[in-house]
């Protein structure tokens, strides 16, 4: 099992979510986050006053998936979240040791 974390542009959330649902992803965790990478913040000016935007708003999607689904999930996220411009985000993949569904106590793949 792998955990896939994707940082994407906020307006791409619906598209990514729909694309993932279509390939059979059952659930995911979505968080509103802020941060910066190569795309730095900027300063906006309104009537002489400066409003600094240090951290840019992004959305983080997290999901756990069986190993064999990983390539498809990644491909789907890449395709649906890409604008080709700076700030499209990143995908991180990491191994997951165990998953437990609290209600039933199921473990492993059944609990995903």
């Amino acid at each position: 099992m792998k955990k896939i974390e994707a940082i994407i542009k906020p307006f791409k959330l619906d598209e990514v979510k729909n694309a993932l649902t279509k390939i059979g992803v059952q659930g995911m965790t979505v968080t509103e986050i802020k941060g910066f990478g190569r795309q730095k913040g900027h300063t906006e000016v309104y009537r002489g006053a400066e409003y600094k935007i240090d951290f840019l708003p992004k959305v983080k999607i997290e999901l756990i998936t069986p190993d064999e689904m990983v390539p498809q999930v990644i491909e789907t996220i890449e395709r649906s979240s890409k604008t080709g411009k700076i700030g499209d985000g990143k995908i991180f993949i990491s191994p997951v040791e165990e998953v437990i569904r609290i209600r039933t106590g199921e473990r492993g793949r059944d609990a995903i």
Partner: protein
Amino acid sequence: MECWVYQVLRKTITPSFRHFILPWILAVYQSDERIELHHLSELGITKDGLKDIKNQLGQAVPIHSSPREFLRQHSDMADGLVRMAFRKAQSQAPSPSVCLMAVGGYGRAELAPHSDIDLLLLHSSSKKEDLPPLVEKILYPLWDLGLDVSCSSRSINECMQMARSDLYIKTSLIDGRYLDGEYEFFRNLYGLFTRKVLHRKTQNFAAALAKELHLRGQKYEDPAYTLEPNIKEGKGGLRDFQIGRWVIRAKYKTDRWDSILFPDHSRMLDKSLEFLWTLRNQLHLLSGRRQDDLTFEMQEKIAPILGLRPGTEGIEEMMRQYHLSTQRISNFAQDILDRVLHEPSPLKKTFHFLQRRRIDDQFGMARGEIHLLDPVAFKKDPPQLMALFEYCQTYKSKMDFRTEEAVMEAFPFIDDIFRNSEKVNQAFLSILRNGKAVDTILRKMHELGFLSRYIPEFLDVEGKVHYDLYHVHPVDIHSLLAVEELVKLKEGLYQRDYPLLTSLIREIEKPENLFLAVLLHDIGKGMDGDHSFAGGEMVKRIGDRMGLSVEDNELIESLVSHHLLMVETALRRDLHDEQVILRFANEVKNLNRLKMLYLLTFADIKAVGPEAWTSWKNTLLTELFLKASHFFEKGAVALPLLKGEKMLRTLERSLSPEIFSAYSEHLPDRYLSCYSSNEIAHHIEMARSIEKELLLVGWKIKKDIQAKVTVCTKDRYGLFSKLTGSMFLNRLNILEAQIHTWGNGIVLDTFWVEDATKNIERRLEQFKKDLEEILGAKVSLRDLLSKRKESNGIKQKVIPRVPGEVKINNHDSDFYTIVEVIGEDRLGILYEVSQALTDHGCDIHFARISTLGNRIVDVFYVQDEWGEKIEEKQKGDRLKQILLNHLVTKISL
């Protein structure tokens, strides 16, 4: 065994219920022999049996229409069991003389299916050591039945002492009721208690209860409790009602709480109370325990039991009634507390008497409260009602409770004439315009029921809830909270957190329009279909009635019908796409409206619940606001957009719906304003086949030497310089060009080219072939250029009579760096300039190339390879220098 259960129950239970319960009791009794003895309690009834009785009771008594009848009968039944236990205990243990009392909710004979049974054993202080065994004997059989019984034993003196020091004991004693034993003890205690404790220091008592109310309010403030409220302890719950009732009991020495209220008011309150009891009974019966939390699960189960429609609709209706009920109860408790707490001492009364003053013929002011001087003022002149609220604002005062009652009594005078009265409406708008404490005034109007009389449309959203996790408050409360957020903003409370919004609310013209829009933004929630647009329509009628000017009315309607536009654009659209911002700005129309919409969006989201407004959302909204405001400040919204919009409408008529919907959103306004509808239709035709092909080139030759060339392909980095390079390669001189990139990454370029040798057809063919090979990466442009240098070498003499000029502009667009190049025309100049831009990391999105005599004037809208503007000064300066060099360098191929 003697069936004394039967005997006791026969005496205590009302006839209507008896026929239900008796057969059961008999059944238990008759089956006595077969059931093992230890399953039977000493009271001749089993735990499960009691559960059954309760459930049967729940079915026997019409629990929805008369929930309190159920409570009473249930309490009667408990009385029977408790008395039975008491007498049996007395007969078994050495019994001092005692009195058994019911206290708390059980004392009021309000016993929900799984409520606590609180008992008090009053004794004469002499024989204390005999008490514990007696208490045990009473409690054990009751506990065995699974009843939640507690019993304290105190002497009269102890009771008095504790009632003085402990609020909880004091309030539980208020509702004390005699059950069995020495009646004299009970009478003594009550005589002393009412005289020496209850009717003394009533103001302190009220203050202590107010504190308790406040602390409990804090605990249940969490939005989770608004969604899944606690019927007993939550805001406006049953306990709040008791607080009001106790204070009335202490202060006015009556248990008829309704006697001090206006009849309509007490009737409504009674209904509210009844509704909460219905819910609580159901909660206990369904969960089988003392559960007072109306959880989502329970909401789903109870709504159908109450006969409401299945599904979400029924749940929402139930919760609407719940919210209306708790609002009434909460207001009742608060009002009673206010009355008692703010009653001045006799000394102060004299002082206030001297301070009294008249406001006008109808109203006066005393001890900081506005009161009615002329009792029939509202009858004589109903518009005085609105004047009263205006005075509350002007004098920063509340009205006293008698005046509040007079307002409620005057409701029959609030009719269409009132609602259309100019005097009334002007006073209302003036309250909104003034802005000070608008939230408090509107809340009072709402609390008294005045607001929904004045704006009847508001009635439909009162208590209205959404069955979801996001909307914490019912619509009416949400709307009032939204107004409160605006007031906070205006008063500068958010200066540190939201400086931009704070400055905006001070800038806007006619703030009354904004307040009205915020108050009414969700008014369409009761209607079918899109609530924004339904609300817009309703607001238009309300505005008409209030006599708003046509512009103001149109403004408010548009704010209400578009109140989700800004948040949807900010959260769901690419704010780096100029087109998105332009369309948004076009819909908003002007800067003042943009400011209002931003403020409305803030107030709306902030009032949804504490979790809803995040700095994350704010960042996106700020960005959208600033970008759109720049368009307005530059006046850049109207022209290209108007043309673009018009063109879209034309296209909609001429294209098939599928094609139109597939392409319309991708066409930039700048593009739409440059071409005719036929040309655009032709371009779309090309774009549809580009999915399969690499490149499409078409041309029309004019006067043998000139041609208009249309190129369609998919965008890629450096495309423009490859295009111009291929033209240069074929000696095609570019006179003019329009470079457009559609939102879906399709490029449509038009060139006007010239070839003085009249070989234009052949050259264009070759150009197309070259470009295909270059784009297909079969050859590189560089190789081709160096190859043909030898064969086609023409020396060109260049004398720069037009001085070169390069401007790099980062101010005029939030999205692109605009590079303006002016210089002397020559073959290949455009290729050089565009290649230089590409080499420098610039992506060309839009370009306008023109040749005036021998002067070229080229404008490029560029971004760096990451889609950002080129803002670094060093980078800009270097670019400028390189371009300038190209403008003056002689080229010798």
